[in-house]
């Protein structure tokens, strides 16, 4: 069977895949790009997250990726020609410390943020409670707040990217699984159920599943799956305006427009399933009540799960692998909020071999060989 041929094959149509595709199509017209995804629209991690974006990080590279991405979100409707908009809400993120150690981490991160002009500020415990009266006072010592952080609708972002890609003649196919990759002359050949696909370059955007396809080419990367679960309450009266993150409880809280409150609760465990686990609710409920006593009597409506990616230093992996023309973009559980910047950086790398962005040096897949790992301090992970 004759193979279809493309310049670039992107595997994975989440935020990273679609963003990279759009940036590439915009950068050079006429590039033949195919994006494939084994699932349905928004069925992966991009459709299963807290929907938030924050510039409040401790490492410069994370701050910069999110800063650039935040600017993009602010003008996404125009840039993607999507009049409906992506439901951008910038009511801030409030990151909370329940110990002196956590507060010290916050203060250190604040300094780095200020160096890059992030409009974040330190708040006392009283200030935090004034901002969100539902917060528990128990052990709370303070927090940091940035009013430009916020949320978008992941579905509308993906929809706008999908439509923009198709307008730029990018071919996007769902329900299409790549079984295996092989080298094919100077390029690659992907085995897909309804026929092989040949491409000069391949970009893997399958996040935690990246190692599966790398294995077929004899490569490996230390990426593990990171399952996370979330709780959605019934709609209730507004009581949480900013997104809340508790470094101690490893919980993020987002009260959406319709009034439901979404709690993403992180819990260290293995697995690749999105199914809700039996002990999750009993695990999460006491923590949630301790963190936010004001919601104790609010009924839980639904639980859901998602799987993101975990790397040894908890940082994304962006760049070219040891095989020329084979690229990866792994999000390390901050895919949505870095997708615009990652799209731009990867498009420059893949189409023009532009390796200038410092992010690429620090987040290269090859860094695991040198063993130089720097961990991001402002992590909301267990």
């Amino acid at each position: 069977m004759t193979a279809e041929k493309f310049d670039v094959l992107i595997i994975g149509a989440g935020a990273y895949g679609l963003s990279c595709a759009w940036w590439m199509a915009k950068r050079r017209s006429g590039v033949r790009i195919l994006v494939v995804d084994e699932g349905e629209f928004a069925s992966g991690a991009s459709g299963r997250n807290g929907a938030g974006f924050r510039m409040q990080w401790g490492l410069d590279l994370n701050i910069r990726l999110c800063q650039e991405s935040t600017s993009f979100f602010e003008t996404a409707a125009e840039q993607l020609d999507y009049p409906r908009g992506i439901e951008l809400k910038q009511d801030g993120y409030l990151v909370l410390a329940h110990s002196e150690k956590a507060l010290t981490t916050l203060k250190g991160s604040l300094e780095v943020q200020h160096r890059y002009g992030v409009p974040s500020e330190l708040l006392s415990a009283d200030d935090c409670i004034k901002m969100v009266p539902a917060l528990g006072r128990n052990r709370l010592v303070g927090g940091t707040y940035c009013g430009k952080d916020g949320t978008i609708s992941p579905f509308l972002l993906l929809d706008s990217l999908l439509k923009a890609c198709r307008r730029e003649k990018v071919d996007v196919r769902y329900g299409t699984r790549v079984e295996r990759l092989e080298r094919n002359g100077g390029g690659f050949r992907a085995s897909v159920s309804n026929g092989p696909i040949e491409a000069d370059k391949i970009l893997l955007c399958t996040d935690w599943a990246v190692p599966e396809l790398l294995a077929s080419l004899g490569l490996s990367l230390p990426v593990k799956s990171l399952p996370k679960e979330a709780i959605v309450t019934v709609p209730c009266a507004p009581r949480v305006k900013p997104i809340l993150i508790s470094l101690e409880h490893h919980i993020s809280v987002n009260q959406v427009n319709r009034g439901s409150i979404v709690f993403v609760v992180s819990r260290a465990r293995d697995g690749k399933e999105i199914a809700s686990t039996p002990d999750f609710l009993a695990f999460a409920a006491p923590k949630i009540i301790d963190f936010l006593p004001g919601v104790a009597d609010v009924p839980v409506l639904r639980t859901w799960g998602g799987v993101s990616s975990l790397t040894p230093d908890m940082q994304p992996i962006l760049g070219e692998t040891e095989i020329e023309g084979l690229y990866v973009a792994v999000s390390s559980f901050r895919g949505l909020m870095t997708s615009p910047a990652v799209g731009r950086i990867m498009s420059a790398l893949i189409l023009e071999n532009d390796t200038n962005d410092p992010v690429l040096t620090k987040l290269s897949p090859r860094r695991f060989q040198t063993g130089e790992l720097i961990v991001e301090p402002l992590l909301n992970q267990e």
Partner: protein
Amino acid sequence: MPSEFQITFEGRSIAAREGQSVAAALIAAGERCLRIDEAGNPKGAVCGIGFCWECRCSIDGVPDIRACMTPVRPGMIVRRQRGLDGCNDR
């Protein structure tokens, strides 16, 4: 519990009998609109057996209680919720 007593709905006194559901007492009194949803649509009891949640009201200050599944009590105060208003009481 006395066999007949009063409850109030939106300030109006409604006759109720021990053993009735809130929805039954209200419907018997001629009330139909139990709630106004976020889009402004009037809503009332639909399924009668507790799966549709359309009949939810604020009862004695607690929001989102299904009128069709809740027995009346003397002096009960039932209020309509308007959108998310009336859900403040939690």
